[in-house]
């Protein structure tokens, strides 16, 4: 009788002490999840300027974006006028594009997913697999840094076996108040391919949020894409009918 509690105690100790990496993994997973929840919110409406910078030219596209949960989003270009009305719908991991001039919807084939989206440094995959970081990767906290007096988790995310992803590793920096500061994408040889960094953290839509995102390929010094939030509103919910092919075709929002 007296022996049993001790045995039980030993076992609990063993179980809790053994998988300390798992505990780290769970922590890391929680940090990433919290961060994704934080920046996606339940639903959001945003007005974004996308600035594509190239050595000899620059182009600014104004995009209105609606997102719902982690899976659905719809984007419509409202400026420049020549491209007004072009839309992209993402549901789950599928994407459709709409062009008002030819009045057709095209579903993006899997072979095109690694192509640039609208000529930017974002690929179609970056949009379509925005929830992939939660589902396809195992996370580990590899360091803690301090930025502006706040604790920042440095997390390395390695794809789970058989996860359908193109990256060999991602490296995230997430501040203790859930703000994603940077996301680096590495290939299978763990060479940096491109990186996205957030800047100008300020109040947007009722919470602190990086106003400007910069996406840059590692091998391109003077080429990058900026996303600058002009407006951002977080919503409790948005109707499902907003994320449909007919909504893509008729941008009457």
């Amino acid at each position, binding site marked *: 009788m007296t022996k049993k509690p001790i045995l039980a105690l030993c076992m609990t100790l063993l179980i809790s002490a053994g998988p300390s990496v798992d505990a780290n993994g769970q922590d890391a997973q929680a940090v990433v999840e919290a961060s994704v929840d934080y920046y996606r919110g339940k639903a959001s409406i945003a007005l974004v300027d996308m600035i*594509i910078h*190239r050595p*000899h*030219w620059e*182009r600014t596209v104004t995009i209105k974006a609606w997102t719902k949960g982690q899976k659905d989003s719809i984007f419509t*270009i409202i400026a*420049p006028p*020549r*491209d007004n009305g*072009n839309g992209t719908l993402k549901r789950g991991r599928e994407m459709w*594009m709409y*062009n008002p*001039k*030819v009045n*057709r919807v*095209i*579903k*993006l*084939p899997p*072979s*095109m997913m690694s*192509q640039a989206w*609208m*000529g930017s440094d974002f690929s179609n995959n970056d949009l379509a697999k925005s929830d992939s970081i939660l589902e396809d990767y195992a996370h580990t906290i590899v360091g803690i840094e301090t930025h502006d007096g706040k604790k920042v988790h440095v997390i390395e995310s390695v794809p789970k076996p058989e996860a359908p992803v193109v990256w060999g590793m991602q490296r995230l920096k997430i501040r203790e108040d859930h703000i994603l500061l940077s996301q680096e994408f590495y290939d299978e040889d763990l060479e940096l391919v491109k990186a996205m960094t957030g800047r100008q953290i300020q109040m947007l839509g009722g919470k602190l949020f990086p106003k400007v995102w910069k996406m840059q390929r590692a091998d391109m010094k003077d080429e990058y894409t900026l996303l600058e939030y002009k407006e951002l509103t977080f919503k409790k919910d948005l109707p499902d009918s907003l994320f449909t092919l007919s909504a893509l075709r008729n941008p009457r929002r």
Partner: protein
Amino acid sequence: MFSVDVKMALRNVWRNPRRSILTILAIAFASLLLVFMLSWQFGSYDTMINSAVKIHTGHLQVQAKGYQDKKNIRLVVSDPATVGSVLEEIPAVAAYTFRTNAFSLVSSRERTYGAVVIGIDPEKEAKVSNLERLIRQGSYLSADDSDQALAGKLLVANLQVGLGDELVVLGQGRDGSIAATVVKVKGIFSSGQDEFDRSTIHIPLRYFQDVYAMQGTVHEVVALGKSLEYVSEIRSRVEDDIKKMEKNEHLVVLDWMELMPGLIQAIQMDLVSGFIFYIILIVVVAFSILNTFLMAIFERTREFGVLMAVGAPPHRLTKLLLIESGSMTMVGIVIGIIAGSLITWYFQVHGIVISGSSELMRHYGLPERMFPQLSALSVSIGAGLVLVITFLTALYPALKVRRLRPVQAMMGV
């Protein structure tokens, strides 16, 4: 007329006619085979290069620097007309044309594929490439067509469309704007080159420039020389002329080897494997010749002994044997060259049909009928090789004879 040595040598050759004729025939056959095979190889390379060049790349192209590697829509030839006028002044240029390319989504009602949309000038293009002749269904573009397209046979099959059906094209213009249009399939082409048939559509150049906001610029100025030999000459002239012009410093001239590095690699691989075969062939011939020459000496040991005993110095025997083998070799090679050239010439006129040609050949869109190409090079390389090898083989017995001692030799066979 002949010296005693030559007379003796010729008599010796004729003393055993069957053996001599067999030796001559072996040499003749080897040179015949080499002449034909080399002509065949050179001919097939010519055909390969010319047909690959005619399908798409042309003999040479003027492009903006870096375009060949990056295919970036912004890297353009901004003033194609002046480059055109440079080409017009070179007599060795047979024809030239302008092209624009953009990687885009091409979609039917059912399916979407990525493809290269190519803007072509229908009239000029017809003189440079085979595109017009490759149309299998429908018809080629005419000068005043606008939203019409020529699509590859495999692409059409993948998209499940036919003649007259609409294709939606969605890509990105030169200014970064979204380029979208709907075109009708006017013609379906099949080049046999799968990559080309699977992933290209052609639309009129002016329409392309409009849709993709090219503002009169093009990506490639494609030129075809009168024949392959003129390429380097045209190239250096165009390079010089372009350097002289202002605002054109960013342009480069690329020849077909730079445009299709895979083709030249395929040719090199084929050459190497060909030469391995020739070496094996020559080694076999060399051994059979060595055998006959050696046998001749073993049979004639006694004869040589007598010759030495009556005062012939060893070097004279060596000379005698070399004249014997040399005359047989010469006769063999001449017969081989004549017969080989005749056979090659016959096929050069009539061609050889290759049924079920290999994947590699189809990749470069080779025709079914191939023509060997008789040239001074293809004739002389083979004959020269045989000559050198037989001479080296004949040296061994000819030198061996010097070690004979008259008395022992006379007691031999």
